[in-house]
């Protein structure tokens, strides 16, 4: 029941932080109300990366301990990752349109990096579906997750460099909220949203993990059921063969 309490707390935290971010905090001087999107965009992006870290670590943990529970954690984190990364991209686009006039900007390293992250996650989840054996699936997924995790910092570097060589957009940057010069009210509102979202993430992770565990048990049960059914069929045919040979003198 601790999870249920966490869920309620997370919900209340999100509602409170959201109300603050939407109605209490004043609009930005330069970016206007559009800046409020940052309060959902930044936490989503943060959770996208956090989930990636968990997926990779859980995968490595599985390769080490061969415990399928770690694989269940990896799967749950990957689903979280897809969702929050997609949110981050959506938020980024909704912010970009009023500020820059376009939905997409190749020169913005964050948008392009996040798109790549989404592609990596989606590939990971699709990839998992194609293997049925739980241990094989866990091992393969862990390897793919490992390489993807190694890739992300490289992607970051390369895209930052890429951007650095062109004149980046000067009017308004997503970074504004994260610089030390930002007004404290904005920073506090962002941190509150970050904390609330992270609580929600934790609750979702736990529930998704529970689902994964039960699903695996059902899978196992189905597999054992088919095995014993096959065994029974084999013994009954041999028994009937025996009976018919005994019956005929």
């Amino acid at each position, binding site marked *: 029941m601790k999870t249920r309490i966490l869920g309620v707390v997370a919900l209340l935290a999100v509602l409170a932080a959201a109300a603050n971010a939407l109605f209490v905090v004043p609009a930005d001087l330069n970016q206007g*109300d559009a800046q*409020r999107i940052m309060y959902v965009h930044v936490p989503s992006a943060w959770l996208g990366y956090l989930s990636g870290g968990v997926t990779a670590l859980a995968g490595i943990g599985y390769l080490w301990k061969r415990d399928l529970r770690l694989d269940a954690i990896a799967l749950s984190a990957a689903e979280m990752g897809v969702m929050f990364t997609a949110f981050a991209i959506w938020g980024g686009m909704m912010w970009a*349109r009023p500020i820059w006039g376009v939905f997409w900007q190749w020169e913005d390293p964050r948008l392009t990096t996040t798109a790549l992250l989404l592609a990596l996650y989606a590939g990971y989840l699709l990839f998992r579906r194609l293997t049925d054996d739980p241990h094989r699936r866990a091992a393969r997924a862990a390897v793919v997750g490992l390489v993807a995790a190694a890739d992300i910092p490289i992607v970051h570097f390369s895209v930052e460099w890429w951007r650095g060589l062109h004149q980046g957009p000067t009017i308004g940057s997503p970074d504004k909220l994260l610089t030390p010069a930002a007004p404290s009210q904005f920073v506090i509102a962002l941190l509150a949203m970050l904390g609330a979202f992270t609580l929600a993430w934790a609750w979702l992770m736990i529930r998704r993990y529970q689902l994964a565990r*039960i699903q695996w048990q*059902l899978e196992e049960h189905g597999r054992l059921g088919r095995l014993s059914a096959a065994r029974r069929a084999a013994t009954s045919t041999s028994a009937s063969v025996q009976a018919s040979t005994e019956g005929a003198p």
Partner: protein
Amino acid sequence: MTDVWYVVAGWVVISGGMALYAVTLLRRLRGTRERSLKIRRGAEAAASDEGSE
């Protein structure tokens, strides 16, 4: 679209998406738990049948 609608679109999709996922997750969880219980009860019944024979 004025700026406000972009803010709305951003917030609605993100929080709505999270809420939708959460609700779906809880439903799936309940469904699989029921199935798991049913199977366990069925196994127990079968075991007690075999025991009483």
